[in-house]
């Protein structure tokens, strides 16, 4: 695996988008895509946290779990690192960057249960990425998730203009259809870069 980290970053945003291709991070995507502002704020928060947690979990896995032959514990260790890192990031941001905290601070605690964060650490282990590749993949995944969520939110805001949605399809149902169409559109990016 000697992929250029930049290629991994572009792939994670467009061709291998975590939400649309791997279908990870869907629950927060459906919940957060009501308003464009909320969606974009959550996207920034996820990118920010991923950029810290992805490399952090890589370092812990390589320097702590592999030498002690306790890879079996990786799920447990990753989830504890995520939960505590999110707490720590929230405290640091609210202490040193109050302006930043007021813009996306409310989203930070929700990130612990965003499966995209745990998925990045699991993918990195499965694909045996190096540290730079991990950094690029983490940031790309965050941007890709934020991009998909923001586009869906933009479409949902205009949904009211097109008329009535069938009663039983309202809410999450129509959002799934929107996401499916968006995923079809993202097929257009395939072939731009190739990974795996």
């Amino acid at each position, binding site marked *: 695996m000697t992929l250029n980290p930049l290629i991994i970053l572009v792939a994670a945003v467009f061709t291998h988008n975590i939400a*649309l*291709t*791997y*279908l*990870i*991070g*869907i*629950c927060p995507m*459906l919940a957060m895509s*009501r308003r464009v502002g909320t969606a974009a704020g959550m996207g920034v928060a996820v990118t920010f946290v991923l950029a810290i947690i992805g490399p952090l979990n890589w370092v812990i896995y390589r320097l702590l779990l592999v030498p002690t032959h306790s890879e*079996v*514990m990786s*799920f*447990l260790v990753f*989830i*504890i690192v995520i*939960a505590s890192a999110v707490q720590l990031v929230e405290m640091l941001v609210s202490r040193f960057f109050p302006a930043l905290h007021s813009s996306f601070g409310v989203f930070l605690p929700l990130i*612990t*249960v*965003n*499966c995209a*964060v*745990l*998925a990045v650490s*699991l*993918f990195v282990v*499965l694909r045996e990425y190096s540290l730079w590749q991990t950094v690029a993949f983490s940031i790309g995944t965050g941007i890709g998730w934020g991009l998909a969520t923001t586009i869906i939110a933009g479409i*949902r805001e205009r*949904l*009211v203009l097109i008329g*009535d*949605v*069938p*009663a*039983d*399809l*309202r*809410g*999450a*149902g*129509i959002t*799934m*259809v929107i*996401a*499916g169409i968006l*995923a*079809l559109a993202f*097929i257009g990016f395939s072939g731009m870069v190739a990974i795996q």
Partner: protein
Amino acid sequence: MNLRRIAYTRPWRTFIAGFFKENAVAYQLLGLCSVLAVSNRMENAIAMGLGVVFVMTVSSVLISLLRNWIPSQYRLITYMIVTSTFVIIVDLFLKANFPLISSQLGPYVGLIITNCIVMGRQEAFANKNGTWLSLLDGLGSSLSYLYTLVILAFFREILGFGTLMGVRVMPESFPPWVVISMAQGAWFLLAIYYWVFRRVAKLKPVEQE
């Protein structure tokens, strides 16, 4: 005991609420990632579904047994530690006995930890109720997840690959409908399932936004 009267007891209502009306996927909208991602083949769907049934039932029982000892400010991290312990068991079991399925499921087994159904039921139910009811609640919700996965996988494997459990069922002349087996098809089939389920279960429609 009169069989009919069971339908009005609390344990039965707890079980059936999770199993049907409050379907984990179509009603509570939890655990969608893995529903969409692993439902392309029947074998994967069954393996994943049974994994979730195991993790959820056992962890619900454990949480409800421990509920008086868990300090409320640490309860979320406790749920996660309990859940990930059982997920590790499922992961090792699949790796040892079904290496092919395990490699196809890839990271999705690990993602059971953040599967919101597990944590959602622990927070909403197991943390407040007795062991027996929590067992039934965990079992009901996770079985609803299992049958959702199986229904979706049934259609997606037949349409997307022309096979069922790896055995060819469609005639050779049927061209595989590739997009159904991909992520894009998963979205549309889940939307149809959501639509049909809400109609059949007569759930109250969501307000127009």
